[in-house]
Structure formats: structure tokens, C-alpha cells
């Protein structure tokens, strides 16, 4: 029995099936990156789980088939939408609503917002819709993370965040070891370090369900060699941080990557892809580091 069991979930708009007999199980502790092109059904899946949509099929929370929009289930799910809503109410009222209506911790919100670079006291009286896109997103993330939820559902959560806030956001999510996550993202590398499972949707069906943790077990390492076209101090420093050794005046690097961190490491490489002339990631080397 999973945290959420989805069986034969179908959602049609007029005659077009956006979710088509989708079957999926989300277990406690799963940190899922939900990927897929536009229109693949990611947001529709979220809306079905949150009870926003009527659907055919069956969704069970901890084995119990719940009503379409069950308040008890929603109390255990925190959600951040893709686009912040243009709420007119002041930020303080939204926070109070989250506190009284969803059990968000006031102290937790203060702390998380501080880490995200937001001074809640400064913006408390400002209407939410008047904030910048990044500020709105930070507030929504703050509210979601301050809730004692068992499942976090984030729809492109970092889309409006600047790189610094994005890094903090990823760290904050990584700290939440007590809950499962379902994160839709176009950029897998962004959430790669967080997740232990990748699910790809295409035209409303699961086309890839990759439990990263099965293949990339903790304690197993991969031998990696990287050749750069020219030395790059920042990239070099990042590789040294990963325990790599440097040769050829900063143009060749070699090291061992913990297999469980492969996605996070690939996320790093993707930022410097244009510098990489040669790359090998030896999967046959599974020896201990």
C-alpha cells in the first residue's frame, strides 16, 4: 500500500483524454521528479490529486478511497502552483489563512521566508498581487514548506526564482526528509539532487518510471573523467569540491562520483556543457570509493 495509489486515472476535456488510464503508486519517502513536455498531463494529474477535477478511475490515500476533494487528505498535501495567483489579500492575511486553515507554523514561515530572502514583516501589509513574481513564488513556497504535510506537490516551483533563491529552495526541500514530494519540472537537472525517482508523462500516460535509488545505490561509485577545451576556474573549483583531481593545467579532471548523486552531478555538468570536450562516466566501476 502506497501513500497514494492511482489506478486507471482518466481525465478527459470534451473528448480528448489528457490523462489516459494512468496507474501509479507514490510511496512514503518518494521524491519524484515529474517530467514531460507541455500538455503531457502533469498539471492535470496534480489537479486530480487535489480534487480540483472530476475524473474516472480511482485514487487512494493510504489505501482508503477518498472523496474527490477530501479535506482530511488536503490537510496532508501542500501545493505550490506553476503561476502565483493574483490574490488581492495582503500577505499577512494569506499567512494567517495558511496558519489557521492549513496548520502552517507561523515561526516556520518566518524562518523559511528569511532563508529565501524575504522579510515578512516588511511585506505583511502589501497586497499579494503587488509583489514581484519571485516574491510571490517565495511566499507560496514558504507557506507550503511551513506546513506539516506528508506530500509536497510543486508545479514548476522554481520557475520565477533567481539562481540564489533557487539554490536556497533546493536546500530547503532537501532538508524536508519527513515527506514525499511530487515535483513537476521542465529542468530535471534542477531537481536532480532532490529526487529518488523520475516519472515521465507523455500524452497522459507514464512512459518512464525510473527509481533512481534502485540503480544508483548508496555506497556505489562511478569513475568519471572530464576533459575541458580550456581551463575554467569556477568549473574546476566545483569539480575539486566533488573530490576530483586536476591534471594538464586544469584541463583534465578525474574522480569518483557517488552513484546516488549522479543526477545532481549531471546537473552541475549541464551548466558547463559547452566547456566539456570529453566526458566518461564509467558504470562498470562500482567499487567502493
Amino acid at each position, binding site marked *: 500500500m502506497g501513500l497514494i495509489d492511482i489506478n486507471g486515472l482518466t481525465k478527459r476535456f470534451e473528448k480528448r483524454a489528457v490523462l489516459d488510464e494512468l496507474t501509479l503508486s507514490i510511496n512514503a519517502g518518494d521524491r519524484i521528479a515529474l517530467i514531460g513536455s507541455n500538455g503531457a498531463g502533469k498539471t492535470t494529474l496534480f489537479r486530480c490529486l487535489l480534487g*480540483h477535477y472530476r475524473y474516472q478511475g480511482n485514487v487512494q490515500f493510504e489505501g482508503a478511497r477518498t472523496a474527490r476533494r477530501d479535506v482530511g487528505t488536503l490537510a496532508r498535501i501542500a501545493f505550490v502552483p506553476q503561476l502565483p*495567483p493574483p*490574490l488581492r489579500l495582503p500577505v499577512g492575511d494569506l499567512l494567517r489563512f495558511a496558519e489557521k*486553515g492549513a496548520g502552517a507554523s507561523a515561526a516556520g514561515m518566518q524562518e523559511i521566508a528569511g532563508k529565501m530572502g524575504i522579510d515578512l514583516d516588511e511585506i505583511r501589509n502589501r497586497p499579494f498581487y503587488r509583489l514581484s513574481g519571485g516574491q510571490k513564488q517565495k511566499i507560496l513556497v514558504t507557506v507550503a514548506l511551513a506546513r506539516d504535510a506528508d506530500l509536497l506537490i510543486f508545479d514548476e516551483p522554481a520557475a520565477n526564482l533567481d539562481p540564489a533563491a533557487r539554490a536556497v529552495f533546493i536546500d530547503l526541500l532537501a532538508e524536508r526528509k519527513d515527506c514525499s514530494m511530487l515535483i513537476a519540472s521542465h529542468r530535471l537537472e534542477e531537481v536532480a539532487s532532490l529526487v529518488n525517482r523520475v516519472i515521465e508523462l507523455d500524452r497522459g500516460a507514464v512512459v518512464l518510471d525510473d527509481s533512481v535509488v534502485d540503480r544508483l545505490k548508496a555506497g556505489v561509485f562511478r569513475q568519471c573523467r572530464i576533459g575541458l577545451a580550456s581551463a575554467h576556474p569556477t568549473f574546476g573549483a566545483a569539480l575539486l569540491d566533488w573530490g576530483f583531481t586536476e591534471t594538464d593545467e586544469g584541463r583534465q579532471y578525474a574522480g569518483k562520483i557517488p552513484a546516488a548523486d549522479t543526477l545532481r552531478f549531471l546537473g552541475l555538468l549541464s551548466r558547463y556543457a559547452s566547456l566539456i570536450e570529453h566526458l566518461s562516466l564509467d558504470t562498470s566501476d562500482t567499487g567502493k570509493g
Partner: protein
Amino acid sequence: MTSSPRASLGLMFRLELTESLRSRWFHFYSVVLIGLMLLLILTGVSESRVLGFTGLSRLLVTYIQIAMAVLPLFIIVVTARSMVGDREAGNLEYMLAFPVSLSAWFWGRFFARLVLILTPVLIALAIAAAYGAVKGHEIPWNHVMLYAGLVAALSTCFLGLGFLLSTISRSTEVALGASMVIWLLLVALLDLLLLSIMIRSQFPPEYVVGIALANPLQSFRTASMILFDPQLILLGPASYVILDAFGVVGYVVWAMVYPTILGLLFAALGYWRFKKTDLV
């Protein structure tokens, strides 16, 4: 965390009050309704005499007749776009992800809007009473209270209708268009317009009276007249039907109870529809 339905309802009620108090529609609406009363006072309407009405009675008669034109249109247009507008903007997607029941969400908003709509009217009536007291006019408290009741009934009716339209419409444009058509139809069915044409065309009088009784605008209008003109001289021969069938008290009760029930039924239908379809 909010657990009881009552606490959830209170939470949504306060949230809607807070949000609407900051919205432009409420500011504009309040300025129009309170400003109208101030304008009537400043122009000395209470000092004039028409068909025997003078003083505060004259002021209230004029105010309530104008309010009848403004209030329903304003309520239905603003309300019809509320839910569907929130749906289009993405507000519903976010807010309905919180663990608050749909009934608390819907009815909390409904009653908060009702309070918001009535407050400026009640303030305007209070200003009229205060002005009457200062000028030494006799204050017809029973009429002030009955007017407040009639306004509350009419407001409930159009608020419910607005919520219904807002939940069944898939876009703001459709909701606004439908609200305008309904309002125009109800105005057209007032006794001076379509009903007189029907009578002239020898339409069965029972149907004409039935339409007039069913029209909440007409019931408000007639009841507001009956308070100051118990014989309904202003209304003409139709007054015989009303007075024979209802009597003065009976008709005033009808004009308060019927629109209220109708509005609550519309709202309940809207809630049922809201619950049964996709929320976002």
C-alpha cells in the same frame, strides 16, 4: 488548524471580507450608494413635497427608487464575475488546495458579500435618519427598518443569482453577458414596460400579475410604494389584485420572504453546480 465547519466558515467569511474591502468594486459601490444619499440630502429633496410625501419619507422614497435601479445591477455584475474570474486568474486553483471544505468556501464568501453589499445601504439609511433627527423631521423608524429589510431581501436575491451565474459560466464574458440580459429582462418586466404592453395586448391578467409577483424587482418596487401609499393609488387598478390577495402586511412579507428564498435557492443551486463540476 481549522477543523470545525463553523470555524472554516468564519475563516472564509473573514478572508472574503478582507479581500473585498480592498477591491475597487466595493469602494465604487460604497461611494455611489452613500454619495447618492448625501446628494439627495444636499439637493433638499426632503424639503419638497410630491403626492403628499415630504420630509424624511420623501427622501427615503426617492433614495429607494434610485437604489432599486443601481443595487441589483451592481450586485449581479460584480458577483457574476467573482468565482469565474477567480477560476480564470488561478486563485481558485491555489486557494482550493487548502483543506477548507467547499461549503465553507462557498457560503463564507456568499455571506461575506451579503454583509459587504448591505453595509453601505445601511450606512446611507443611518445618515438619512441622522439628518432627519438634526432637521427635526419625524423619523419613520418602521419604514427605515422595513426598507432595510426589503433591500436585504433584494440583495440576497441578486447575490444568489450572481453566484449561480458565476458558477455555471465558463468565462467572465459569458457571466457578464448573462447577468446583463437577466437584469434587462427583469427591468423590462416592470409594470411600466412589458407588463403594460401585455395588458394592452389582452394577455390574460392572471399571467401578468403572476409575472409581476415573480419578478423580485417588481415585488421590491411595489412593497416600497405600499409602505407610504397603503392604498397603492400610484399603482392604479393592479393594486386591487395585490390588496385583495395579500393585504398590505401580507405583501410586504411576500416582498421580503420571496426574494430571500429565491436568492438562497439560486445560491444553493450554484453551490451544487460548483461542487459537481471541475473546480478550476
